[in-house]
């Protein structure tokens, strides 16, 4: 019997794990289309009434708008600062690279709770009013290391001879960045920006501590749960899931595109070595 052959038990366990993972998701989506106010079985019929109700809700619309504004601002700022940081990090004096990278990436390990409280104390000390701006700052702190991780990896993979060739042909450092570096890594940057959007859009823990009088979509959902439980909450969850998923798919699609470009470039060289 070959070791690669799987027993029926393996299949059963795999199936069970997948059901366990996706069944709750499927239930949320299913009951968002429920005709009645119940969020548990029996399922009595399909209807879009909860979607109509939710989309007509003023508070829902304003929190969706707030979350979108925050996520777009955070991802744009992260794109600019994160790209500069990654560029500096891969091109500074070699002995500075490891310690700087450690400092930049360390926040990934911090619990959201800790970051939230720390920021709250920090804003209070500096007498900064809590608002959507403080939420943006908090989200930036949260998504920045993830963006940097992806962007730095792309710059590390770039053949240094390409930038040297551009310098050798007379291009200034800024021109090299615009004409060679950026065109080669932009798919990765675009993907990392989509990732930053997705991370910010559904962030809850840090937001919980530093949100002012305004509200974001995850905060809105949380407050709704306190009052009544009806399919409207399923509708909001489903929409949140859909929006986040779209941006994860975008991020993934760019990553695949970048990987293809790399494979093609390496093919040329490997093909040569084999020829």
């Amino acid at each position, binding site marked *: 019997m070959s070791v690669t052959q799987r027993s029926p038990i393996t299949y059963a366990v795999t199936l069970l794990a997948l059901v366990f993972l996706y069944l709750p998701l499927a239930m949320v989506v299913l009951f968002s289309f429920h005709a009645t106010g119940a969020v548990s079985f029996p399922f009595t019929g399909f209807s879009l009434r909860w979607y109509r109700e939710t989309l007509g809700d003023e508070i829902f619309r304003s929190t969706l708008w707030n979350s979108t504004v925050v996520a777009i601002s955070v991802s744009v700022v992260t794109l600019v600062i994160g790209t500069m940081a990654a560029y500096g990090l891969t091109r500074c004096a070699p002995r500075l690279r490891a310690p700087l990278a450690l400092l930049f990436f360390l926040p990934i390990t911090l619990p959201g709770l800790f970051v939230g409280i720390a920021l709250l104390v920090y804003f209070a000390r500096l007498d900064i009013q809590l608002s959507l701006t403080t939420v943006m700052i908090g989200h930036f702190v949260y998504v920045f290391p993830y963006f940097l991780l992806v962007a730095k990896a792309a710059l590390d993979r770039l*053949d240094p*001879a*390409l930038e*040297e*060739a*551009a*310098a*050798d*042909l*007379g*291009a*200034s450092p800024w*021109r090299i960045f615009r*004409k*060679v570096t950026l*065109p*080669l890594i932009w798919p990765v940057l675009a993907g990392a920006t989509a990732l930053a959007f997705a991370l910010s859009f559904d962030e809850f823990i840090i937001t919980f501590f530093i949100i002012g009088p305004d509200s974001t979509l995850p905060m809105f959902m949380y407050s709704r749960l306190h009052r009544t439980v009806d399919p409207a909450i399923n509708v909001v969850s489903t929409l949140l899931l859909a929006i986040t998923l779209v941006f994860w798919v975008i991020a993934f699609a760019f990553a695949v595109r970048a990987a293809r*470009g790399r494979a*093609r*470039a390496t*093919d*040329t*060289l490997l*093909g*040569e*070595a084999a*020829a």
Partner: protein
Amino acid sequence: MTEESRLELEGVTHRYGTVTALQDVSLTISDGEFVTLLGPSGCGKTTLLRIVAGFIRPSEGRLLLQGRDVTRIPPHRRPVNMVFQRAALFPHLDVFENVAFGLRVSGAPDIEARVTEALRLVRLVGFERRRAHELSGGQLQRVALARALVNRPRVLLLDEPLAALDLRIRLEMEAELRRVHRETGATFVYVTHDQGEALALSDRIVVFDQGNVEQVGTPDEIYRRPATPFAARFVGDANVLPVHVVELSGTRATLDLAGIRFSAPSHDGLAAGPGWLVVRPEVIRLGTVAGDGMRGVVRDVAFRGSGFACELDVEGLSEPMKAEVSAESGAPPELGSAIGIAWDSEAVCLLSRKPE
């Protein structure tokens, strides 16, 4: 001298931390010369090329281009261009835009005409719209050559451009490089670890070992009159035999090799005492054993097309002696047979050896 010499290195030393990559290298390269920096990997030749390109600032020493000190000029302001080991074509641009890159940067007029001229020089007209991944290795290097030459650099630097190619394409590209050098008249500084390439291409060769210049000379000089045992072994095949110089008289030297007296050409700087005798395999004649001549036992014979490469055990020598017998001279010597060894005393080279 300075008037026509394009590139001068004065006492260039470079250290990576505590490792010395180049030790006090001084070198003058004339206008239009094809100079090859030759040596094993890690000998400092690539470091020197990157210093000329401007990617590395030397720890000590100066670099002058037409008498102007450019040691501190960044690479994008130097009138030199480089062909990289693995072409390093921009993958997001097609062939035309790769070649046009330097012209667009400098804002040159007639970009289209100059790119076409450069592509004609490397015989790639019609490939303008191809991308790097649609080209063969030889074509990649031709584009890299055109991309550098289109800027009409005073000095063209080539960093092992043929190392990644297979033998047939490499020989083809060697001929292309010689032709392009003739047609452009530019100064070429070429780095390689392949002595065959160096001998075939260069006007002059600079032999490097461990950061030091071992010898500078024409291919012929280095082959016939190597200055050091390293140069003798690295350029071409050689027997480097430990001898004792017994007597010097004018243009001749008498020496003792494994108890047998030989004569060899003498030269300035040669002293009596320990020395090395460099004997190329192809100057050795194998024949019948003569009375008091040198003799050896054949231990290996390999057919090489043009002849037979033989290895002989010689009494009194620690290493086997290499000899080449041309295929026309008939059958190769028999394995295990004793055979007489002789050579033309004008075709060997004697070096001084520091006593150990």
